[in-house]
C-alpha cells in the first residue's frame, strides 16, 4: 500500500473562499481512458486491488466490503458507477480510499480505478465548470474540468458522488 502524505496547510480549502484562490492538489487517476481527479485532502490511502466480500442485494457498482485496519469499508467500482465498459482488474488496478462527508457523519469508502496517475496542482484559474450536456446527463458530481499539462482532468465532487449517487439509492438502505 502506498501512503500518500496529505498536506496540512490549506486544509478545507474547498470551503474557504480565500484558499480557493490558491492552488489545490488533486490525485488523478485513469478510468477507461479518461482522467479524473479527487482532492487530495480527502484521500486516506491507496492500496492494491484485493478480493472483496460481496454484499447481496446492492447495486452492481458496490463490489463489496473490505477490512481496512479493522473497519468495514465498502468498495465502489467507478467504472460501473459511471456506466463505462467493465474492465479487467489488472496489476495497476487500485483502490483509492477516500473520506466522504455524508449528511450525518463521515464515511470511508474505497474507489476502484484503473490506475493512479499523478498528483497535480490546479489553480483556481485552471478550473472550468463542467459543460452542460443537456438533459439526461448528470454532471452535478463534477466539480469542474481542469487542464493539466495539456490534458483534461475531470475533477470529482466525491461528497455529491457518494452520498447522492451511491448510498442514497441503495435498496433497503432507508428501511
Amino acid at each position, binding site marked *: 500500500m502506498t501512503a500518500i502524505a496529505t498536506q496540512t496547510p490549506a486544509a478545507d480549502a474547498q470551503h474557504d473562499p480565500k484558499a480557493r484562490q490558491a492552488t489545490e492538489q488533486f490525485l488523478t487517476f485513469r478510468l477507461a481512458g479518461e482522467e479524473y481527479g479527487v482532492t487530495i485532502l480527502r484521500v486516506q490511502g491507496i492500496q492494491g486491488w484485493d478480493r472483496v466480500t460481496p454484499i447481496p*442485494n446492492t447495486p452492481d457498482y458496490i463490489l463489496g466490503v473490505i477490512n481496512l485496519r479493522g473497519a468495514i469499508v465498502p468498495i465502489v467500482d467507478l467504472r460501473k458507477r459511471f456506466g463505462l465498459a467493465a474492465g479487467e482488474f489488472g496489476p495497476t488496478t487500485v483502490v483509492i480510499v477516500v473520506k466522504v462527508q455524508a449528511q450525518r457523519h463521515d464515511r470511508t469508502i474505497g474507489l476502484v480505478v484503473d490506475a493512479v496517475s499523478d498528483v497535480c496542482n490546479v489553480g483556481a484559474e485552471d478550473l472550468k465548470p463542467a459543460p452542460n450536456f443537456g438533459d439526461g446527463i448528470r454532471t452535478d458530481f463534477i466539480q469542474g474540468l481542469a487542464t493539466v499539462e495539456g490534458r483534461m482532468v475531470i475533477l470529482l465532487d466525491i461528497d455529491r458522488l457518494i452520498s447522492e449517487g451511491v448510498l442514497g439509492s441503495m435498496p*433497503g*438502505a432507508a428501511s
Partner: protein
Amino acid sequence: MALDLTQFHAAFFDESFEALDSMEAALLQLDIGAPDPELINTIFRVAHSIKGGSATFGFTEIASFTHSLETLLDELRGGRMQVTQPISDLLLKSVDVMRAMLRAVQAKQPIDMQRVADVQFDIELAIAQKGAPEVAAPAAPAAPPQAESAAGAAAPASRGPRQWQIRFRPFRELFARGNDPLRMLSELETLGRMSVRVDASALPSFAALDPEGCYLAWDIELEGDIEEQAIHDVFDWAEGDCELEIRCVPSRETPAAESTVEQPAGQHEDGAETAESSEVTNGAAASEGSPVSEHAVDALLSASDQDKASAAPAERAPPAAAAAEHAEHAPKADTPTISAVGDSGSIRVAVEKIDELMNTVGELVITQAMLSQLGRSLEGPMAERFRAGLAQLERNMRELQDSVMRVRMLPISFVFSRFPRMVRDLAQKLGKQVELRVTGEHTELDKTVLEKIGDPLVHLVRNSIDHGLEKPEVRVAAGKPPVGTVHLDACHRGGCIAVEVRDDGAGLDKERILAKARSRGLVGPNDVLTDEQIYELIFLPGFSTAEQATDVSGRGVGMDVVRRNVKELGGTIDVRSEPGKGACFTITLPLTLAIVDGQTVSVGSETYIVPLVSIIESLQVKPGSVNSVAGCGEVFSFRGEYVPIIRLYELFGVEPRARELHEGLIVIVEGEGRRVGLFVDDLLGQQQVVIKSLDANFGRVEGISGATILGDGSVALILDLPGIIRRAATRAAA
C-alpha cells in the same frame, strides 16, 4: 487552597439520582397508616444525604428544599405525624422536584423555582397542620439551618434531651498550644450522642501544607441531656485558640429513631461522596500526628471503600431487598442507601473507557483467531507446542472477554425500578387496582441493551394496565380478585435474556383485532388465521394508531415501535394471550451487542456467519425427503413440521458448489417464531465473532445484521435471519 469540589460533582449527581430512586422505591413500599419505621429511616437518610451533599457543593436551593422535606420526614419518623395518602403523594412529588432540581443544576440550567416553592409550601403546610404542640420546628422549616435553630432556641429548656450544634474552628496554631481536637471530640462523645462533620475546605495543597498546622474544622451535633456549661468545659483549654459556636436546637430525635444519628451514620450523613466525608475517626486521628496528609489522602480516596465497618452488601439492592437489608444492618452499621456504592468497593468508570477496552479485546479476539488458524496448518516438531500455547491463549482470551463483558453488565433492576412508581400513578389515574410483581431483577444485561429496553418495557406495562387489566368491578364480576397483577420477569434463557410482561387481565381481543384488520384490508374477508397470526397483527405499523385514534380498546398502541426497538437490539418479541386470563409479552434479547457466537457456513467462495442462538439443527437431507409446494417453494419434513427451504446462494446471488440439496447441508434456523432451512454448501466451524456495523460506512442491508473480520483478515457477513426469511418470502411472492 481550597479543595476543588467540582471534580466530585459528577459523583454527587450520580449518587443523588440513585438515592432518589431508592427513596422513591421505599416510598412506594410505605404502607399507609402503618409505615415500617425502617423505611421511613431510609427515606430520611436519603433526604439528609442529599441535603448534606448539596449544601457542601453550594446548591442552596436543593439544600433548602431537602431541609423542609427532612423536617416533614422527621415528624413522620417520630410518629408525630401519620403517613397518609396525601402525605405519601406529597413525598413522591418532592422526589420529582428534587430530581428536577438536581437535573437543572447538573445541566447548569435555572431551577423551576415556582414548582419548588409550591411543593415546599405544601410540605410546610402539612407540617403546620399536624396540630401537635411543637410549633417551633415548623415555624421556619424553609429557612436555612441557622434560622431554624434560632427559632428553636426559644424553647430549649422545656425538654430534657437537647440538641446542640457546635461549630469548632481551631486556629492553625492549635497543636502548638498543646491542644488535641481528638481528645476534645472523644470527651464530647461521652456527654451524649454525637455526630461530627469535618470541614476540610481550608486544607491547602500538599506542597503548601504545614504539618504542624491544624487546617480542619468540625461541625458537631450533640444530643442528650447536656448543660451548655459541660460543653464549654470540654473546650475550656482551647477557647482562646479557636472559633467556637455553641447553639441549642430543639431535639427532634425520638428514642426510637436515635440509632440513626449515631456516629457511624454521621460519617455518611453529609454526603459520603464529598471530600468532607472522610471518616470522623480518621480525621480526628489524623490531627494527632500528621493531621493533614492523611486527611488529604482520605479526601482523594473518597470515592473508594471508606467504611470497612459497615458491611453493606455489594450489589445495589432492589427495593424489597434494600429494605430488608437496611433492617438488618441499620442497628450496627446504619449505612445510608446513598453510600452503598462506596461500601461495595466499586468505582465509577466512564462508559467510553469500557467501550475502548471492549474494542481492544475485540481486536485481540480477531488476532487470536488468526493465530489459531495459522497454528492448525503448521507442521513440524514445534507445531504441537505452538498449538498448546494457542489453546491456552484461546482460553485466556475467552476469560478476558467474559470479564470485560461482565463489566458492562448491569442488573435489569435499573430498568425495573422505574415501574413501581409508574404503575402506581397509572393505576390511580385509570381507577384500577394494580399490583406489580417483579422477579428476576438481578438478571444482568449489557448496559447498551439495558438503556434501550426501558422504553419498550414502559410501553408494554402501560398497555397491560391501560388495556389489559379490567376495572375492579369488572374483575370481580368475572370471578377474579379486584386487584390486577402485572408481572415483570427477567431470566436467562439459553444465551439470551427473556423479559416478560405478564398480566392477568382480559387478554387480547381476537375478534376485535381481526375485525380491525379486515376493515383495513390487512386480512382478506375469508382468510382464516391462527391465534398467533392474529396476535401478530398488533405489531403491524399503522394498525395501532388506528386503534388509538378510534379510541377502541385493544392493545397495539405503538406496538410496531416496540417491536422495532426490540429488533434493533437484535431481539424478538412474542405475545401469548388467553381470553379472560391475561396476556404475556416476551422480549428475548441477546446478552450483548458486541460479540456473537456464530456458526461459519460457506456458500461458494463466500463465508457467512449464522448466529448460533438461532440455529436449531444442521442436517443433510435425503434426496427424496423434499417436496415442492405449488412448484415454487420447497419444504421438507422436520420433526413433524414442514419447513421451507431457503437456498442461500439464490437469495444472495452467489455461485455455489452444491446445487443439489443432498450435496450440501440444511441449517434449521428460527427467526421471529418461524423456522426455515438454510441451504448452504458446508459448515466451517463455530467461533465468537466481533460484530462490526455495516452502517458506519455503508448502510443497512436487509438480511445482513453486520459484518465481522475473520482470522485471515477477510470480511464475513453476519446473517440477520428474520430479514432473510422476510426477503425469501417476498421473493417467493414475486
